[in-house]
């Protein structure tokens, strides 16, 4: 979708037609794609098979694992390498379906990038929801020499999907991915523009019948699928399930409540957490830097490539130490780069005490539920980069989440009399590779349960049986099948209510900004495929010029209805999102410079994206309000 089509009458109809055609034809497969920050995984179920014995198949993704060497792996590392024109031989990067692929992604890309970081694009997904950059601008890899071809975060995501599509189509020539039901997972904390950009990346590689699904929900679907018919016995009405998903680069939190609806169990996603850029990779890095410091004390200074090797070593050693309590230390060796192995191999060891101190106490500190993440002071001159969490304490982020959503189950405004209260989950579902370690998983469970018990509640139980690495992709494939009316569906809708900022007109008072009001345009929980009545409030749009609005979201104000005008709110209730923008074209009887009154209407598409339209009060037409993903 180019900017032009986004701002004028757009090709939404065409997309909906595509969607219908696919549904009519009856897609053979539901394909789930976990488009992760560090890895992508694809899984599928055969829609033609019986509901009860739906079989999940993982789709191993063929990729370059070395120069001239192709192998199908469960995971496609989400890395894109922009090779120098003379760096690689032509036949070194051929794939089974393309002798000259458009882009080099996957294992080889990651490996080459480890040695040449200035040509490596990584964490594109985190950039997708970074409001301070233009997400269409080609600026990745960051800080690379001018001659390196740059791509935008959207382009990078597109390349990963493109690779998966080609791989699938090569394996299933009669059932191309374009004709299957495709579900792509996104963090629950993705804002409307990041969701739209993900959907756009999918459309641009021909995946028109794509649906977006929040990752924690995908983990729940996977758990339901794995539990089979038993899931109804493992949870009961009134349960509140906390989903903790610690991925490679991000941590995603959600609350799902179990309710009864016309006699049967129903799941409702009632709250999602903020976007936390903190994950398993941070843990490996923390260990590597700890060992680096230890080596520095003994007079050994490490080269960057050695730190890289140390990080790999720490990942393996950590897993060993965390899964076997009888080991006290695991040796880590980083071989020399030259062919002389002996004498120049770096040897150190990672001890249990180091892992416990760095990971257990560093990432999962034993804290009180009232303790929330520390905000680092930001320097005035901040280098362009991802907004990594400045507090590594997962438990503090979790405490803040439970506190923020203490009223997630009740209607009405957050009760400020109980500012230190928190919502007590009754069950916990873990996801993500970092929580495969029983030590860390138990630690987290115990801390949450201590909070609950101190507050006089019943301890939460762990929902087991999840496949922590692959659950998201599997759950996504299962969801594709659920959408066809088979199996239980989690209801949730939008995880936030959305507001347009309106500056009230009042006489100017020097030194005071005009007070801002917020008009609710989309309520919390608005479901996919629904639209709401347009608001009463009218806006004047200048024809022929882009008009910007300030845009806000709130994950805790659940009671606001469309058209509600907020005069004041607590600073932590509304979060300002990137601006939104609309341009009315000069056409018909509208001349440039005219002011046309419009109303705003919100719609949540079947895809899972939020759409805002501007509709003139008089006359025909409908214009898309676009999420301004460009930096001002």
């Amino acid at each position, binding site marked *: 979708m180019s900017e032009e089509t986004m701002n004028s009458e757009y090709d939404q109809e065409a997309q909906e037609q595509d969607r219908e055609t696919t549904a009519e034809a009856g897609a053979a497969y539901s394909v789930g794609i976990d488009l992760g920050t560090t890895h992508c995984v694809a899984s599928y179920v055969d829609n033609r098979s019986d509901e009860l014995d739906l079989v999940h198949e993982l789709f191993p993704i063929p990729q370059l*694992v*070395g120069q001239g*060497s*192709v192998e199908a792996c469960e995971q496609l590392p989400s890395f894109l390498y922009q090779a120098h024109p003379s760096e690689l031989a032509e*036949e070194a990067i*051929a794939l089974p379906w393309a002798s000259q692929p458009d882009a080099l992604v996957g294992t080889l890309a990651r490996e080459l990038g480890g040695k040449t970081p200035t040509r490596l694009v990584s964490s594109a997904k985190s950039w997708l929801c970074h409001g301070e950059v233009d997400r269409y601008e080609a600026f990745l890899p960051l800080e690379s020499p001018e001659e390196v071809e740059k791509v935008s975060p959207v382009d990078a995501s597109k390349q990963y999907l493109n690779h998966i599509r080609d791989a699938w189509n090569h394996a299933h020539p009669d059932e191309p991915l374009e004709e299957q039901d495709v579900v792509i997972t996104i963090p629950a904390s993705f804002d409307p523009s990041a969701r739209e950009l993900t959907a756009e990346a999918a459309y641009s590689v021909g995946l028109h019948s794509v649906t977006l699904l929040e990752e924690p929900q995908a983990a729940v679907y996977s758990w339901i699928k794995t539990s089979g018919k038993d899931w109804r016995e493992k949870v009961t009405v009134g349960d509140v399930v906390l989903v903790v998903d610690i991925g490679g680069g991000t941590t995603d939190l959600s609350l799902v409540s179990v309710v009864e609806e016309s006699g049967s169990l129903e799941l409702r996603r009632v709250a999602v957490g903020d976007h936390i850029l903190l994950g398993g990779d941070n843990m490996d890095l923390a260990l590597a830097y700890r060992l680096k410091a230890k080596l520095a004390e003994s007079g050994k200074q490490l080269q960057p490539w050695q730190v890289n090797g140390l990080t790999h070593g720490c990942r393996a050693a950590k897993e060993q130490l965390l899964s076997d309590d009888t080991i006290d230390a695991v040796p880590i060796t980083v071989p020399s780069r030259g062919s*002389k192995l*002996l*004498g120049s191999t770096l*040897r150190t060891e990672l001890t249990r005490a180091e892992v416990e101190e760095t990971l257990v106490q560093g990432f999962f500190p034993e804290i009180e539920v009232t303790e929330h993440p520390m905000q680092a002071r930001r320097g005035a001159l901040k280098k362009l980069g991802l907004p990594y969490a400045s507090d590594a304490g997962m438990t503090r982020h979790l405490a803040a989440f439970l506190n923020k959503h203490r009223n997630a189950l009740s209607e009405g405004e957050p009760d400020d009399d109980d500012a230190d209260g928190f919502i007590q989950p009754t069950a916990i579902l873990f996801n993500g590779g970092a929580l495969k370690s029983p030590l860390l998983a138990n630690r987290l469970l115990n801390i949450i349960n201590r909070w609950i018990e101190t507050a006089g509640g019943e301890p939460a139980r762990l929902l087991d049986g999840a496949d922590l690495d692959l659950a998201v992709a599997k759950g996504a494939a299962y969801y594709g099948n659920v959408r066809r009316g088979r199996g239980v569906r989690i209801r949730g809708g939008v995880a936030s209510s959305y507001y347009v900022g309106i500056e009230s007109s009042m006489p100017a008072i020097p030194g005071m900004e005009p007070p801002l009001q917020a008009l609710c345009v989309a309520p919390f929980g608005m479901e996919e495929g629904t639209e709401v009545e347009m608001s009463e409030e009218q806006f004047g749009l200048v024809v022929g010029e882009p008009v910007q609005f300030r845009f806000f979201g709130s994950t805790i104000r659940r009671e606001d209805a469309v058209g509600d005008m907020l005069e004041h709110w607590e600073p932590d209730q509304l979060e300002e999102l990137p601006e939104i923008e609309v341009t009315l074209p000069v056409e018909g009887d509208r001349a440039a410079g005219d002011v046309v009154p419009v109303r705003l209407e919100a719609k949540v598409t079947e895809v899972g994206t939020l759409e805002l339209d501007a509709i003139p009060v008089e006359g025909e037409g409908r214009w898309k309000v676009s999420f301004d993903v460009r930096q001002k």
Partner: protein
Amino acid sequence: MMIDWTLQIPAVFDVGHIFLVTLGFLLLVVLLLKRTPSEPLPAEDDKKSETGASETGEEAPAETAAPPSIKSSQPDSALQLLSLLQKEARLIDFVQEDLTGFSDEEVGAAARVVHQGAKKVVEKHFTLAPVRSEEEESTLTVDKGFNPQEVQLTGNIAGEAPFTGMLVHKGWRVEHITLPQMVEGHDVTIIAPAEVEV
């Protein structure tokens, strides 16, 4: 070579084992010389060709037994495996080095690199199973009609099967191989490119 075999630090085991490991891999390479990657293992093929041969043998009794066909080796997959072992385990670097003058501790450190990497390669690309499931050093009986490729008799071999003896080594069988596919035209003799940092 100056190795103090009485050393009590555990590094000693590395020196002993590294030769075994190395030897094992070289044997694997030799084994693979006879096979192309990602193809079904020969067990079933052999059976088919055996029955095929006996059928044709009945139809054409006049022909005398043909000399066994000797397959020419296919170096590509062997080179590929060497390349994997070099990349992950630095096997070629290790084998090419002269260990004289290095302490056991240094050899041990390098041995860990080789062991970790080689283990990764073997676990990823080969499914291994012992040929005999009995405990080593236990007594077992080898029945009549045993496959001499699977069980090798040693020592005092005399008389008729069944033979009773002690299981010295349980043997290894590769049940499945998956090696990466190779792109046509890629030079497999370069098992590790020279690396130049610019």
